């Protein structure tokens, strides 16, 4: 366990750069900016029976657990292997006992913490703009969703980065758009193994945005059935599988220490 803490401490000291700290603020600021804009420029075609609780719940869900968390972990875990290979530091870690295992786990935990804190900071301030009375309930639900979203997406991107380290960011974006954005809405068995399918069910359960979600034809067919503990177990299982697979791939592949020109 001390090795994991050492890796986390090392990763934290590495990411405490001006650039990465700026990114943290950009991520945290993103939902605040959008929520602020919505507040300043209200929807022109809002009807009289406009349900602001439903609207803000869905908006904050899309802005924070979906976009901010996914973007945050994508920046950290997607290129986790690629950056070590590109700067040729991989071999120093690979020649330590279980060095790669601890490296990936440490990067994963730090990425989750980094993205979650940015998301929760952004969520906290963005909720101020909503003007809702049920802010605390939404905050608790969204904060929990942010943590689960970061945990799950970090594992997904770590896996994608292990499969395709040379084009990690590109494949992560493609995965997000194709699998999480499109396949998760397909009413078939395949959408059950997507993170978004489970997160949506947790969102409806914990934030309770209103019946409009279940009445919406797009969501109605793509919401997971069952109580929230089942959805959490699904997320934990999916995350474990993604993480384990990423570790296996990173250990089995030949990531050469030498450059292509070095034989």
């Amino acid at each position, binding site marked *: 366990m001390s090795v994991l803490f050492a*890796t986390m401490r090392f990763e934290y000291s*590495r990411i405490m750069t001006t650039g990465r700290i700026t990114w943290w603020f950009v991520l945290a600021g993103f939902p605040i900016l959008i929520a602020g804009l919505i507040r300043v420029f209200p929807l022109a075609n809002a009807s009289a029976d406009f349900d602001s609780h439903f609207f803000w719940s869905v908006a904050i869900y899309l802005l924070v657990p979906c976009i901010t968390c996914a973007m945050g972990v994508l920046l950290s875990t997607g290129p986790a292997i690629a950056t070590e290979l590109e700067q*040729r530091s991989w071999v120093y*870690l690979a020649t330590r006992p279980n060095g790669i295992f601890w490296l990936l786990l440490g990067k994963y935990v730090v990425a989750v913490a980094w993205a979650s804190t940015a998301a929760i900071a952004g969520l906290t301030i963005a909720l101020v703009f909503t003007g809702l009375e049920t802010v605390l309930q939404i905050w608790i639900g969204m904060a929990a969703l942010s943590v689960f979203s970061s945990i799950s997406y970090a594992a997904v991107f770590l896996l994608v980065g292990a499969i395709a380290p040379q084009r990690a960011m590109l494949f992560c974006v493609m995965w997000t758009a194709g699998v999480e954005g499109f396949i998760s809405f397909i009413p078939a068995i395949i959408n059950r193994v997507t993170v978004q399918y489970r997160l949506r069910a947790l969102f409806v359960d914990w934030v309770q945005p209103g019946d409009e979600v279940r009445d919406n034809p797009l969501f109605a067919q793509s919401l997971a059935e069952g109580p929230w503990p089942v959805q959490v177990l699904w997320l934990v299982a999916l995350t474990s599988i993604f993480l384990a697979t990423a570790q296996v791939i990173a250990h089995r592949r*030949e990531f050469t220490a030498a450059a292509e020109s070095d*034989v």
Partner: protein
Amino acid sequence: MSESFTEPPLIQFESVTKLYGNVLGVNDISLTLPQGAYGLLGPNGAGKSTLLNLLIGQLIPTRGTVHVLGQNPRHNPDLMRRIGFCPSFEGLYSSMTGLNWVTFLLELHGVKRCQARECATHCMNLVGMRDGMNRPIAAYSRGMRQRTKIAQAIAHDPQLLILDEPLSGLDPIGRAEMTEVLRNRIASGGSIILASHVLHEIEAVTDSFLLISGGRLLASGTADEVHKLLFDLPVEVQISCNDPQQLAGLIMSQGLADSVCLSRSPSGAELLRVATRRAAGFSAELPKWIAEHGLRVDEMKTADDSLQTLFNSLMKIHRGEL
């Protein structure tokens, strides 16, 4: 180098071939080495880095098996505790201090933080980084980075140190200091495999070497052992005299030379290069010709005992020139 071992061999290659697609990295190498210090010698692209990557388990042989200290190096945490590796490239985190970097790598071995820090400080001092260890690596000169790389390799006191071009980028003082560090490790019973294409770097550390080229092991052993293999090869003699054409004619007329070549030195003087398998007869006849024909020999050089000569000869054999 065949001897009975009471402990597992340092390294054991059995018909090891490594292919990168169609490119040959190493080609059918079989080798068993007891514990000790060895220089891995070969030109750029000879297969040194591939061989070292096979030793540390980063590459999987396409064919054959590799054992280091009696164990398969692939996915072997126990073995990684006993190996220290210094790659030829840098790959250091520029924002970190050298001390923090070495401390972290020690912590990956399971060493407690305070103990790791103490040990890393000792190693940074050992490699002459006392003043620079707390500065960011970005501010290091190439030599300081090289010293830091060596520090991280020796910090956990490995049984086997694998070094790829460890002295490149160091100034003469740095080379001497690092050579001393390596010699001390050998003297205290540590094993070392040192890859380089610079002969005197290896000669300064050990007289046992492996010579590879084109992915093949050309020779192994001490310089003396390899010389014995070469006793039947032509000896090259380089002569600088006042009339090299006449001397060349005399040598050829007596049939004592396999080849004679006239060339110019960088200073413009004509040089006569003679390759002969009858070195004794040649040495006996040469003074007579000089005396009889009034020749003046300014300089005469024969093949010396340096590794460079061995390397050149073996490379010629490998290319089919001898």
